[in-house]
């Protein structure tokens, strides 16, 4: 045995301790860097997105003038005129077509339709005064949120000094409010940022994920059980295994091309439909579920299989009575993580047309729709100022769903985890 207090022993120990400290330091630096990046990502999203969670509204008293609004020709309109008339009660001196148009521009273009829907639902309102609260148009929303600076030269901003004056007058009259923007969730897409919402995208993602789950969950588990428990080990099963692992690494855009060619081109399924989106995502989720399920099946201790075989259970009784129930938490975790991946997938959906401009939410998986990530893509591509914050807000909504799904996966894993 060497002398522990000798010079060489001590210097050896010193070197070893130094290495250990270095490794620890590098590890902590790596984690710190990752945490910092995550913080910067979330912070930048929140700082640009939080403003989209409120929406500037204007509340005005509208006299539904029977001269303008006729009960027998409601769809024809005239609602913009009655809205303008109510605005003009604040600014009696505004006249002339151009000025009136500018004044009208304070209120969102969609406001007249909101009013129309209300009158259509209750025609007895004609001839009465109603209070309506409607979004202001995007430039004034930006102004109210301070995103349009008042000290910018007039020529370089969307709102003129006179329009700012009108807006401030309305504000002083308490007509302007900034409530929580539920429209972000309850509205469908729109060309006007103040009206655009995620309902269509949320429903589209929901239908696509449902289709994806219904296809990939049973297929994936079935394939994994067969490969893991029943398939003979030979060249063919090795080949299949290698290919499933490869499939998990195929770029998603390739799946999109495949779906375009097969589902839409050959099978003739509808374009932009969550059905096709879900089928495409199922192709991508399948390998994930198969790999996770096989790992979960493998993790069931062999002693449980032996115990069941030992009392005379047949192979399928062992698998379905013992192994599968014990592997279920792992399988569910893998499935949820696979679905979370599918929820965030964009490229294949672009290829099958789920980035179309669609202003109604899908009622079935066969209707045209967008999905959350493609909606983010569309908004990020839109020039209006209001879409900048809405894009960030939509990303936050998507991240919320992803975090929720992962949290459910972690919860399931810890709840059903068994110790042997």
């Amino acid at each position, binding site marked *: 045995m060497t002398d522990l207090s000798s010079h060489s022993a001590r210097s050896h120990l010193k070197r070893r301790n130094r290495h250990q400290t270095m490794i620890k330091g590098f590890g902590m630096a790596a984690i710190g860097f990752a945490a910092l990046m995550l913080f910067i990502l979330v912070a930048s999203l929140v700082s640009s997105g939080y403003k989209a969670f409120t929406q500037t509204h204007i509340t005005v008293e509208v006299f539904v003038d029977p001269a303008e609004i006729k009960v027998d020709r409601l769809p024809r309109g005239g609602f913009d005129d009655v809205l303008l008339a109510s605005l003009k009660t604040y600014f009696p001196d505004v006249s002339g077509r151009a000025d009136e148009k500018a004044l009208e521009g304070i209120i969102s273009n969609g406001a007249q339709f909101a009013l129309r829907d209300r009158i259509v639902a209750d025609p007895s309102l004609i001839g009465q005064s109603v209070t309506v609260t409607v979004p202001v148009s995007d430039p004034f929303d930006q102004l109210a949120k301070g995103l349009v600076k008042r000290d910018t030269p007039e020529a370089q901003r969307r709102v003129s000094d006179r329009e700012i004056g009108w807006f401030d007058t309305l504000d002083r009259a308490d007509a302007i409010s900034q409530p929580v923007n539920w429209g972000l969730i309850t509205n469908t897409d729109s060309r006007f940022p103040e009206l655009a919402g995620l309902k269509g995208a949320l429903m589209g993602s929901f239908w696509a994920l449902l289709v994806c789950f219904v296809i990939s969950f049973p297929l994936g588990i079935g394939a994994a059980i067969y490969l893991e428990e029943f398939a*003979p*080990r030979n060249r063919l099963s090795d080949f299949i295994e290698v290919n499933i692992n490869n499939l998990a690494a195929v770029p998603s855009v390739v799946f999109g091309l495949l779906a375009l060619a097969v589902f839409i081109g050959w099978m003739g399924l509808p374009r932009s439909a969550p059905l096709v989106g879900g089928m495409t995502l199922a192709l991508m989720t399948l390998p994930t579920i198969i790999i996770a399920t096989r790992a979960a099946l493998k993790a069931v*201790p062999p*002693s*449980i*299989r*032996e*115990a*069941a*075989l*030992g*009392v*005379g*259970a*047949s192979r399928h*009784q062992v698998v379905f*009575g*013992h192994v599968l129930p*014990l592997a279920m938490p792992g399988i569910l975790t893998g499935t949820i993580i696979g679905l979370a991946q599918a929820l965030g997938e964009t490229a294949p959906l672009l290829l099958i047309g789920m980035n179309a401009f669609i202003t109604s939410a899908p009622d079935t998986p066969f209707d045209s729709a967008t999905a959350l990530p493609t909606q983010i893509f569309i908004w990020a591509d839109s020039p209006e100022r209001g879409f900048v914050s809405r894009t960030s807000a939509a990303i936050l909504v998507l991240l919320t769903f992803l975090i929720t799904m992962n949290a459910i996966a972690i919860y399931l894993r810890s709840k059903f985890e*068994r*110790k*042997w």
Partner: protein
Amino acid sequence: MYDAPTPESPVTTETMKFSARNVHVFYNEAEAIKGVDVDILDKTVTAFIGPSGCGKSTFLRCLNRMNDTIAICRVTGDIRLDGQDIYDRSIDPVQLRAKVGMVFQKPNPFPKSIYDNVAYGPRIHGLANTRADLDGIVEKSLRRAALWDEVKDRLDTPGTGLSGGQQQRLCIARAVATQPEVLLMDEPCSALDPIATAQVEELIDELRQEYSVVIVTHSMQQAARVSQKTAFFHLGHLVEFGETSHIFTNPTDERTESYITGRIG
């Protein structure tokens, strides 16, 4: 440790249960069992002893065809249970395993209730028609495994919550619940403490009244305590087989003598 004198209990029967002739087992090309002939009697405890890797567990697993589950394993030769070739095409390994129960090295109760653990075998083999029948089988099996008094008030608690020794007795109860004729035990006490070991050994002696018991063990004292017949395996050969008292006091083969005196192993 626990060092009782070698029991002089005579072999009480000459009825043959298992008879194996010229059994070879191959894992791919490697030969693990090299031509074993052995006769296992009814209502007798037969112990398989030998150093690690000598093939005693492999041979035990031939007796209920547990080796079938290993793809690379191949068995040749002739093994008969009550005169019937168990590797015959007409024999279903699933039914064979109901007749030849097995207890494993590590206690491996299902992560289910105590009741469900014992009731599993009878359920899948359709041994009970009514709930009352099943209750009866569960109670009888647990009594036979000397566990009933300890667990009768908590049959619905998980079997994995019992102590190691209780878990192993639960596994024995589970094995006897299918009314087997032979019980195979693969080092049933190697994961247990001395007290639990003593309980299980006592149990094995009682089980001999109704079953033929084959036990693989690493402990020569255990083999001496519980068995009437002993087989010594070495490097895939059955070196010596005979009355336990004879093997331990007056071995004929010098390898046996070396092993029991601790020179090889």
